[in-house]
Structures are given as C-alpha cells and as structure tokens.
C-alpha cells in the first residue's frame, strides 16, 4: 500500500478523498477546484491502478443554451434589475442605464419580478421601482435561477425541489437552458481504493520535482520525492531528422566510396555538347529520342565550351575517328551549345574523362538529379536521381564489365542470382543490362553498362578502355521506404516525414 501511495500523482491525491463523498464526475470536478481534464486524467490513472472503478451511463441532463451561457457570466436580466433596484429606487430609464439591459429584457424582468413580488412600484411623476423584503432575501440567498445556471449541467433525475422550480421557470424562456442526453461518468472507490483514500499517509507532503535549490540547500534529504506513473503517455516532441530518401542516397554514396569510387559532379544546366554530342550521339538520330530534353529559355547557348574539343567531336561525328566511319552528316556547332537540363548522369563522364585530373586506373561515380521531358505520374517524376559512373584502366574488357555488374548485384541487391543480357546505349559498344533477383522484390533491371565507344574516347584523349555504368535503384529505394508512388520520394507531408522509421 505504501508503494502505491508513494507513486500517486498530485492530481490523484486530490481526487481520491473526494471519491469518498461523491461519485458523479461533475460533482467531483465542482468540489475539487480542479479542471475537468485533470480530474479525468486522475480517474484514468486511478482506474489503471485498480483503486477506482469508472462507470459510464446515459442520463438526461439540463444544460445551458445560448443565452444561458451569456447570463451565467453576466447574470440573469431580472437579477441584474433587482440588484440595481436594491441599491435605491430607480425609474425604468435609470435602471436601463445602470444595468445595460435592453428595453425587452427590462420589460421581461419587470413582469417576472412583479409576479414573484420581489419588486414594488411607487407612482410619482415617473414610475419608480423599489425592492421588496422578499426581494432582498431572494437576492441574499443567491437567486435560485442564477444558482441553477451556475450548477448546470445537472442530472434531471437528481434535482432538488428548488432546482426543479428554477428549471421550470427558465425552460419557458428563450434559449436559456435545454435538455439533452449525456454520457455520465461515475467513479467508485474499490476496496483497495477505500483503504488508501482513508489513509493518513495520503495527506503527507510529497515533492514532485527535484530542484536545484533542494540540492544546494540539502533539503532533498527530508523531501519525499514521489514515484511516477512510469507507463503514462507523454506529449510528443518533434526532433531533427534526415529525409528518408536522402538518407538512402547517402548510404548509396557511402557504399560507392567504400568500394573505391571517386565522386564527380557537373552542372544541372548543361549543353547538348556534354549531354549528348561528346557521347558520340548523332544530333539528328532516333538514338536521341529517349533523351527528350527540357530546353532553357534564356540564355540559349553555352559560352564556355572547349573549342578544341568541340572541333574534335565534330570531326568524329562527321568523318569518324579511331577506325570508325562516323555518322556522316553536318555537325551543327550552334546546336551543340544549346543549353538544356541534363537528361542523364552520363553528361558528367566526358567532363571528367577530358579533365587533367583524370586518374588511371580510376573508378568514378555520380549521384545527380536529371530531367526528362515526360508526363509526370506515379512512375515518372520531372526530377529524378541517376546513379552512374565509369571505370578506366589498362586491359579492361567485357569480362571485367560483367564482374562489375556482379558486384553491383551483391552490394545493392544482396543477391548472386543475376542475368546479364545485351543492351543498347548510343555511346557504348558492347552494351549490357543487368537483371538481379532481389530477395524480396524479385527480378529487377538493376544496371545498364557498356564500354565507351572509341569514337567518343578518341576526341576526349583517353586511350584506355572505359567501362561505363548506370545503376537504377529507384525500385529498391521505393521498396525500402515502403512507397508506391514515385512522387512520394519528394514528399512534403510532415506527418509522413516525422513518422518515417529510421532504418
């Protein structure tokens, strides 16, 4: 018993003794000086500790209506009238002025008060109202109708004679009280509850919070720190959190770094040169159809293209290099400078390959936002992230490319069940696609890859084989994040973001 008492909250300590006398919820609230929510919380906790049994039933109650709520605060018009008249006899106009009543309310008040003989009238030059003795005692006893308004809501079946009369009087007036059916809560002490409610220990002073002062003064030694209801729910807090999809991408990045890949980047607004032409994609060819681009309105053309390299690429397209016949058409140097939003991550590769910083052997990757002129729906975003890169080194060939794909399947899909099939990219030859059997999603197309074409590498000045690859983790991400609609990757729903598991 002692430990139970020690763990009682201040609210519980206050409510328990009251339950010896009252059981109705409203009664407890009224006599506790506490707020209804506090009493309700205390009752719930006490029920949890089996000290109290809570019963609910439907009862007919009388409660305040629209005007009743106003009159509870301001006082009933007749009471205000009577009160004013009690100070000194006053004329109607004077009474209206001092009480602030409307003419209507004043007239109703006169009728009511006269009927009950609470006021009298003195006839003079002007009609003057005066309080009667009965009126004085009524005012002194608190004015039964006004008391009722204060006590509402009240259970209809438990009204006193006086209350019944007041209800009758008020119910014929406009929108002061109304009757309705309510859920009524009643609480009863259990056997154990009764013992504790009667216990003297309950009255002992307990301390809720350990304070700095107590520690400094040493008063903590005497203090009786109460135990807590440890299982009680607490208010929610909102904490700083990473965006789930960004965390996923971050983990992918960390994995590539761990595998020895170096990250590269490039601009979002790109020229057709780096996005396509430098990849030996002919300017007017069906191979370019999949790269439907967004074009920039202004400025339209890049001004910083490397002139020498553009000339070499132009030559490769028109006449061919490295033993190639070339595409045999007139390369448009204006078109090559046209600014677009990059259509794929591979736009970054020729920048890196032609840079002085290129390391051979080297492994490179990039995770970047790309854009396609496409209808936006559950499977297409205007923005999407692409993950890709290349591996450059002496003697790399198709077998190494297969080895790389096998590694991707193991690292990103945790599987060695793979299928590598021929594929097509305008800038690689040969090209291969990787299908991997994800343990939970099943077969997915995980990666595309190939060996960059010699016509592309020659102008860039790289004479070692380069394996290009791109990895599609969209489905893996969606699966991991439990999403059905790709647009949710960029969700702005705070509730979703706040609740999303950190896994």
């Amino acid at each position, binding site marked *: 018993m002692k430990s139970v008492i020690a763990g009682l909250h201040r609210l519980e300590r206050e409510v328990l003794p009251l339950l010896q006398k009252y059981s109705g919820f409203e009664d407890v609230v009224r006599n506790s000086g506490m707020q209804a929510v506090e009493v309700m919380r205390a009752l719930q906790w006490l029920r949890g500790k089996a000290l109290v049994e809570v019963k609910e039933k439907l009862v007919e109650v009388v409660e305040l209506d629209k005007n009743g709520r106003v009159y509870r605060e301001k006082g009933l018009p007749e009471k205000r009238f009577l009160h004013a008249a009690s100070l000194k006899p006053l004329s109607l106009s004077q009474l209206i002025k001092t009480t602030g009543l409307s003419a209507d309310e004043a007239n109703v008040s006169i009728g009511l008060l006269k009927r009950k003989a609470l006021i009298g009238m003195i006839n003079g030059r002007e009609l003057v109202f005066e309080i009667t003795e009965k009126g004085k005692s009524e005012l002194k006893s608190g004015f039964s109708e006004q008391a009722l308004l204060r006590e509402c809501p009240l259970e209809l079946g438990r009204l006193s004679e006086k209350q019944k009369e007041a209800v009758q009087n008020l119910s014929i007036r406009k929108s002061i009280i109304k009757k309705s059916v309510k859920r009524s809560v009643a609480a009863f002490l259990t056997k154990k509850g009764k013992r504790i409610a009667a216990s003297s220990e309950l009255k002992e002073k307990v301390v809720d919070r350990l304070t700095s002062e107590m520690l400094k003064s040493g008063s903590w030694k005497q203090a009786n720190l109460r135990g807590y209801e440890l299982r009680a729910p607490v208010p929610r807090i909102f904490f700083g959190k990473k965006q789930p999809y960004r965390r996923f991408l971050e983990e992918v990045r960390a994995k590539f770094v761990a595998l020895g890949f170096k990250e590269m980047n490039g601009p979002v607004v790109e020229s057709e040169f780096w996005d396509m032409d430098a990849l030996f994609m002919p300017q007017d060819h*069906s191979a370019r159809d999949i790269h439907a681009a967004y074009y920039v309105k202004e*400025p339209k053309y890049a001004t910083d293209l490397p002139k020498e390299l553009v000339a070499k690429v132009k030559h490769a397209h028109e006449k061919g290099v490295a033993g190639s016949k070339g595409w045999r058409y007139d390369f448009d140097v204006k078109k090559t400078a046209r600014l677009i939003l990059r259509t794929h991550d591979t736009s970054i590769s020729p920048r890196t390959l032609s840079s002085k910083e290129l390391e051979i052997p080297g492994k490179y990757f990039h995770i970047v936002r790309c854009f396609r002129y496409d209808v936006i729906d559950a499977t297409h975003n205007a923005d999407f992230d692409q993950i890709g890169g290349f591996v450059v080194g002496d003697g790399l*060939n*198709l077998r*190494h490319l297969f080895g790389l794909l096998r590694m991707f399947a193991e690292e990103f899909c945790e599987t060695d069940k793979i299928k590598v099939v021929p594929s097509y990219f305008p800038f690689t030859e*040969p090209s291969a696609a990787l299908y991997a059997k994800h343990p939970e999603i099943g077969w997915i197309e995980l990666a595309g890859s190939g060996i960059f074409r010699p016509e592309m590498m020659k102008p860039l000045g790289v004479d070692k084989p380069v394996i290009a690859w791109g990895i599609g983790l969209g489905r893996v991400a969606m699966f991991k994040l439990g999403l059905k609609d790709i647009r949710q990757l960029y969700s702005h729903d705070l509730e979703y973001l706040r609740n999303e598991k950190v896994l």
Partner: protein
Amino acid sequence: MPAISFSYKDFQDLLGKKLPVSEFGELLTLYAKGEVDGYDKKTGEVKVDFDDTNLPYLWSVEGLARLFRGVFKTHLGIPELKINRGNYRIVVDPSVKKVRPFISSFVFKGKPITGYFLKQLIQLQEKLDESYGRKRKKVSIGLYSYKRINFPIHYTTKAPDEIKFVPLEFSKALTPAEILEQHPKGREYGGILKGVNRYPILIDNKKNVLSLPPIINSNFTGKVETGDTDLLFEVTGTDEKAIYLATNIFAQALYDRGYKIYSVNIDYGSKKVRTPYIFNEKIRINRDQIKQLTGLDIKTSDVKQLLMKAGYEFKNYVVSIPPYRADILHQFDIIEDIAIMYGFDNIESAPLESYTIGSATEMNRFADKAREIAIGLGFQEILSPILSNKVVMEEKMETFGTGLVEIENIMSDTFSVIRSWLTPVMMEVLSKNKHRDFPQRVFEQGLVNIRKGNRIVGMEVLALAISHTKTDFTEIKQCLDAVMGSFGVNYSLEASDLKAFIDGRGAKIKAYGKEIGIIGEISPKVLVNWELEMPVSVLEIDLTEIKNIIS
C-alpha cells in the same frame, strides 16, 4: 523504344520451326535486345519491345525471323536477296534538291496481299518513318498499287496551289497547300515543309499524282488494297544512305516472304542510281581486337561461325555486312555481335583488380556538415524537386527578379523553372502542413540555379524555416549563430529591403565583403499568399560561397 506486334504463328512459319513463346522471349533478350511485352493466346498475337533504336531491320516479323534463323543455324551468312532488273524509271527534277533531295524505289510482285500482311507492311513503314525516319523528316515511305501507275514517274516540285489531287481518305481534290491545312496528316507532318515555296510531288507520266511526300498519298494510285499483287515501294528523304537502308530493309523483308523484287532506275540527270542499292560494305577486324574488347580468345573458325549466325559473311577477318544494316560504324559493332552470338551467358566475369581510393566531392562533404548542424538544431529535413514555378518562386514571395532559369518547352506549369532560392520551397512545405502539429521546423539543403546575364550559376544552399505561435527574428538568428559559429565564419547583418520580410525584420547576411544569405521574419502579406496562419522565420545561406570563404 520501338514496339511491334505480329502473329506468332506467322513468325514460326517464317522461322520454319516451332518454338514456345516463353523460349522466344528468353532468346529475344539474349539476341535481339528486346523483350516480349505481351502474348494474346486467343488471337495468337505477340508484342515485342526493342531497346535498340539503331537496328531498324529487326522491327518486322520478317527481320526477327531472319535473326532467329541465324541463331538456330538454319541459315548462316548474308541471306539471299535477288533483285530482278526492272524496266522502270523515276525522273528526278533538280528542284527537289532544295526540299527533299533523295528518292529510292522498287517494284514487288508475286502473291496477293492479305489483310494481315498489309498491316505488317504498314507497321514496318510507320516504325521506319517515325523512329528511324525522325517522324518522316529524314525518311518517309510510300506504297502504291502498281497497276494504276504509268511509268516513268516524275519526282518534282510544284507551287503550293499549282495542282490538285484527291488525298487518301478524302473525296475531293485539294491543292498541296490545302492538304497541309485540311488533311489530318497535313496538319501532323506539314511542319516538315514549313518555309518551302515549292512542295515535292510524285506524279506519273499521265499526270496522275502519286503522292505529296512526306505527307500523303493520292487516293487513286496511293491506295493499297487487299488482293493487290503488284506494288511500288518508294522512299524519299534528306539522307541518301538512310533511304537506301529503308529500301533494303523493305526489299529483304518482302523477298524473305517470297516476293519478286524489281529494281527501279532513279534518273537524277547527271547521275543514275539503280535501287535497291546494295552497299556491299566490308570491314576488316582482327583477333586481337576481339580479345581486347571481350576478353575472349576465340578460334578463327569459331569467329566465322558466330558471325555467320549473326548474318555476316567472313573471309580472312574481312567481314561483309548485310545490305539491311547501317549500324556498323566501327569494328567494335561487329565484335559486339560476336559476343552476343557467343552468348553473354557463356562469358565468365573477371574481378576489377585495380586499387583505387574512394571519396565524395568536397562540396557534398561540406553540405553534409551543414545538414548535420540543421538536424542538431531540431529541424526536419525536406527533399524537393529542383524544378518549380514562378508563382512559388516569386509571386507568392512578393519578390521578383530572383534570376529564374526558365524552361522553354514546359510539360506542366508546376515545373517550369529551376528554383532560384529555397525559402519559397520551405514556405510551400509549411503551407501543405497547416493542419499538422506545431512547432514546425524544416530545412532543405540543395541546389539552386541563378541566371546572371549570359551565365547560369549553380549553388548549393541551406534553408531553415520555423513556424509556431512565437517564432521571431531572435529564434532564427540563434540558428544562424549556431551554423556560422560551427563553421567559424564571422558574419554581419545589413538591413534588407526584400519584400518577403517584415520591414525592419529582414537582413542580408554578409561575410568577408560577400553576400552569403538572407534572414528574417516573413511578412504577413506573404504568409497570407501562402494561406498560412502562423508566423514564420527563415534563413537561407549559400554553402558554395561559405565553403570558398573557409578554404
């Protein structure tokens, strides 16, 4: 991606062999860079999707069956294509040079065209026109009923209103100009002839118009019907090699089906070409190259066998290319076919052996630190599309001239610019979460782009926004102190006249003489624009610039 459909029974007949559809699907991925997209058991129709946009010869049931005859070794090497010398002539007027300079043609005869086969022909025609032919601009094919044509045909040009003929699907005669305006095909493809003052016309010797290439055939000669036995094929275009290739693809497909092909003499005046024009291309490859690219050491006799399966001829490492292929630019294109026929399944993978050190970009590592601070401050991270729109970026923010990079060919108004700052995105987030619990603290780290004259500058930025009943400048400045203190950057504030902020409660953040961000309390006008009912304070800093300052 090109896609075709055909009768699977027809495919098996052409292949000369029964093959379960499931197996066909497997082989398709292994040899044709395609996949089965559907098989209707009731109609027996199969749908195939292709990855490769550069192998138009496969976009017909005949082409696919031909490839598979190689795979199953029922035919090796370049397939036969016998072309009979025809006594037909197309006279080309020099005026076409400016519009659509090249034409190629042949006549085919044999058996009556069935409804199914006509559909197949039209399907191949459409795939070649649309995908390979750049929506008819580069290549556009026409088929005609031969019996109504009087040779020679003239390929010439006419003024827009010079002649009249009844186009397909119409009953009244129209001038070329009228066709471009009134006929659905005219409206669809008319753009190709934009800005031209004379239109290309094919007209026969009796002045019957065959067609207005690349728009529409005439209803008289250009209507092919079931039961026709003799037809004329014609293709016009801007790329000579491409139209010959389209001719050869068609001729081979028809020959495979048992039609007799008759050549047509194209008379350019100065030059005469007999079409179909067989390229007879040869490329020399060598064993080292094969090993270098594939890592495989294949015997010469095997190389020969593999290449013949793929439809090539091979003699002493000189490879002859079939006339229906124009995708071979380099030895590697042939070597890929060797690897495919060898079977990707049979190629053993090898590990990458080079030792390299991995690293993330400096910018990303720095951005991650900024994110870490924001999260430490209790902010929820947001990730948004980089594309946005003017209403979000400027109008609702009461802030104009932010340097928006606009998109010319927008797909939707929602995504019509690149975001120029992140604060509006934070406002958008808050406006979507009015009914969620407060306080709300959100941040995003990401890329913005700003147009500065002729240049477009990309920057990584960090934006923080706070919304609750009592948020104010002090609270957001505490955050700024935390961020800048963490980076060890001393900053100063200078009053800003940015309309997004309450007057006197918005500032520019400066460090080392450079403007590196903004901070302030959002103005009530802007809050109302976003339908927000709670105060908001924000800060946005340029991480690219701060990183420069630090290093």
